[in-house]
């Protein structure tokens, strides 16, 4: 190909993302002119759920993903609970929050240490002043911070063992609550495990109390924090981000949505809403469709409550197994950034006002979420009441509909369930990465990652451009969830 013609490049398979991913890039003068994201794995969960007894959804649907397994279980349980008109006891709610919060905090920890930061140990950065420290802390398989984080997670996930038996694919989450009652000894162990997690991230990640990070209100606060706590890995990231201009990289225009998470009597820790770029609006899902225009799927753009999943291998314009979710015709970004924006956290609002959604703000939002989640986990563990019920019995359902909306680590996850004559008549799932890594829709509008990749620099000799890897990983994709 001559130098003047637009060059094409296929990047994939990707490592250190969950599942299989390919990105097709059109290049123009050293920059990405357009990108097409392909999720090359299809399993057909929605088809398998058709016709099964509703309670089987609790066994089948969560197996979409071994990473956000608790989030998938809770979405299923909530969809069934909604169909049954069932409320869960306070202990069940606390157990749900503990499980989801622990999974999300640990996912953010793993994403930062094992998936995202190791990219900065790349030889391309050998001349940078921070490169030696990045190698020491994040070299794959050997970096101190990376190894310590993997060990911390293994230890912290004893929370899952105590509350849910095995993980992933825990079965304890039921429509009526948790099948596992917690006794006093177990409550003490849970509190100790959360305390250990706090101690570790305060010592190594933040080198500061969590509250000091959670209280940051704007960019100058963030810079001061990085200077004052320079020994921490969060500060190392902020130094790298400033040096490489990560706030300019991988910008996505929004909007962003959150289904809301951790509901309690006095309101949710993270409320639901739609961020339109300037303000939070109430979230109305009436205008939600999944558009299969560029997916190997037959049919029209439909609301997931009426949606269908029929593979069509012969579609010429298709390039992914992923249908494109659109809200009121727009692609929407989901994740920790969306949650904290909608929750009104001043630091994230300030970063958005500055340069919107970008590699830096997406990573900062995850770190912030760790800092905000741990104190909540401490509280939920302390509030468990061993002598009170954890689960209400389920109610048989003949004909009903239910929606289960959950905030997984990577963003909003929805399960739409229809039961007819005691059997599942329709089950549709939209996962966080389905939003973020969606292909184009019928109007040709690219998905959030496809937009974020436009303009990203690509070196001539880069087979797998490093900047592309930063952008892709800043979304923390989970490809197995994307298509299911």
């Amino acid at each position, binding site marked *: 190909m001559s130098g003047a013609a637009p060059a094409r490049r296929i990047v*994939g*398979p990707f*490592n*250190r*993302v*969950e*599942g*299989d991913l390919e990105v097709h890039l059109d290049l123009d003068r050293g920059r990405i002119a357009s990108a097409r994201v392909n999720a*090359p*794995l*299809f*399993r*057909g969960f929605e*088809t*398998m759920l058709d016709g099964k*007894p509703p*309670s089987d959804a609790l*066994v*089948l649907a969560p*197996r979409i*993903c*071994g*990473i956000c397994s608790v989030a998938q279980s809770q979405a299923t349980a909530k969809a069934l609970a909604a169909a049954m008109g069932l409320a869960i006891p306070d202990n069940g709610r606390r157990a749900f929050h503990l499980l989801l919060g622990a999974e999300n905090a640990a996912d953010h920890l793993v994403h930062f240490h094992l998936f995202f930061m190791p990219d900065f140990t790349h030889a391309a950065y050998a001349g940078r002043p921070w490169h030696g420290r990045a190698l020491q802390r994040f070299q*794959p*398989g050997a970096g101190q911070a990376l*190894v310590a984080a*993997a*060990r911390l*997670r*293994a*230890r912290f*996930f*004893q929370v899952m*063992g*105590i509350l849910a*038996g*095995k*993980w*992933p*694919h825990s*079965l*304890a989450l*039921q429509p*009526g*609550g948790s*099948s*596992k*009652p917690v006794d006093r000894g177990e409550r003490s162990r849970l509190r100790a495990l959360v305390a250990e997690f706090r101690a570790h991230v305060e010592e190594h990640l933040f080198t500061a109390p969590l509250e000091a990070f959670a209280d940051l209100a704007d960019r100058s606060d963030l810079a001061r924090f990085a200077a004052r706590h320079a020994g921490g890995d969060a500060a190392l990231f902020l130094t790298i981000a400033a040096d490489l201009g990560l706030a300019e990289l991988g910008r996505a225009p929004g909007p962003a949505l959150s289904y809301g998470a951790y509901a309690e009597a006095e309101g949710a820790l993270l409320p639901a809403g739609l961020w339109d770029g300037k303000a939070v609006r109430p979230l109305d899902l009436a205008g939600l469709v999944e558009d299969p225009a560029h997916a190997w799927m037959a049919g029209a753009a439909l609301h997931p409550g009426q949606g269908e999943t029929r*593979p069509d*291998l012969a579609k010429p314009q298709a390039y992914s*197994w992923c249908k494109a979710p659109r809200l009121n015709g727009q692609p929407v970004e989901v994740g920790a950034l969306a949650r904290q924006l909608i929750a009104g956290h001043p630091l994230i609002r300030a970063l958005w006002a500055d340069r919107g959604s970008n590699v830096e703000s997406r990573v900062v939002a995850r770190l912030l979420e760790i800092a905000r989640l741990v104190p909540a986990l401490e509280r939920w563990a302390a509030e468990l009441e061993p002598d009170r*019920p*954890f*689960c*209400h*019995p*389920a109610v048989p359902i003949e004909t009903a509909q239910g929606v289960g909306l959950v905030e997984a680590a990577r963003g909003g996850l929805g399960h739409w369930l229809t039961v007819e004559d005691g059997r599942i008549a329709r089950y549709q799932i939209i996962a966080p990465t389905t939003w973020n890594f969606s292909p184009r829709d019928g109007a040709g509008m690219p998905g959030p990652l496809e937009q974020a990749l436009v303009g990203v620099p690509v070196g001539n000799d880069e*087979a*797998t451009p490093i900047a592309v*890897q930063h952008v892709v990983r800043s979304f923390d994709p989970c490809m197995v969830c994307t298509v299911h």
Partner: protein
Amino acid sequence: MHQDPISTLEAKLGVSRRSFLQFCTALAATMGLPKGADAQIAQALAGAAKRPSVIWLHFQECTGCTESLLRAEHPTLEKLILEIISLDYHESLFAAAGHQAEAARKAAMEANKGKYVLVVEGAIPTKDGGIYCKIGGHTAMELTKECAADAAAIIAIGSCASWGGMPSTPPNPTGAAGVNAIVKDKPVVTIPGCPPNPYNFLATVAHFLTFGKLPAIDEKGRPLFAYSRLIHENCERRAHFDAGRFANEFGDEGHRKGYCLYKLGCKGPETYANCPSILFGDVGSGSWPVGTGHPCVGCTEQGIGFAKPIHALADLKNTYPPASYPRIVEDQGQGLSFGSAALVAGIAGAAAGAGAMLARNLGRKDDESDKA
């Protein structure tokens, strides 16, 4: 000059001799090996001159198997596995991306031809030419055949790679199958479970490293040490089954008291696995599905897991309470308890028949009440 290999490992990995030996003992115990085998395993793992090369392929999967391995402690996987074996290709953990990763896989296969261990995670779609799972432009079928050709040993980790697992749930939209449906000319060791217990996998690898061969397997490729006993045989709630004490609903009195989950559809009586013996998550007693109040779903058993409805009663393959059990006074339900039934029947010299009859009645009674 002779340096003790465990001391070398101790220095290299930063794991204490004590925790390393504990780990080896746990593996030996998982496999039910005789006394002394733990020392053999320790010597083999610590003293391996060259780390065996492992190629780890991901297909139609959820990464749950890798995730559960990452949770294994004493010592953690990233220390032990990454040091003791040479993981030359693994998508989630590997540092490189794209063509580099592909090249690493090919180079490792060439350099270790006939000697590497192939691990497959995830099912292999066979319908429509295998189009439902492609990595680097190759189908899962092509990659499996290519990597299996020169492998010294093949391990299918998880139910998906073992027989198709979750993605093969009827109507099996992608024709998902296990490794042994693709690789016919070599034995494939299967470690089913969703996810499988990490110690069953690690013990299989340790066996290969220690004794130079894979452990004894059954006709489905499952290591006998892990899959020769029914869950029901070692279940901590077995006494409640024998005594006729059952939970009827999640959250009811029987459920809160930790009674047997048979009537909630527990598949323990027809599922072969060592879950109740070795547990999950390194947190001690009760950390497995039945321990947390949820019936076993039979995830290790083809035809049961993901195929049989969760509320359907298990077929009892084994109905006799141990003769040594004392008579237990029933405090819930109706009729004769299992323990007392067996006792009475035992006196009459027909324990087997009575036990089986009672078990059938249990099932039938439930079926009838469902219809009512």
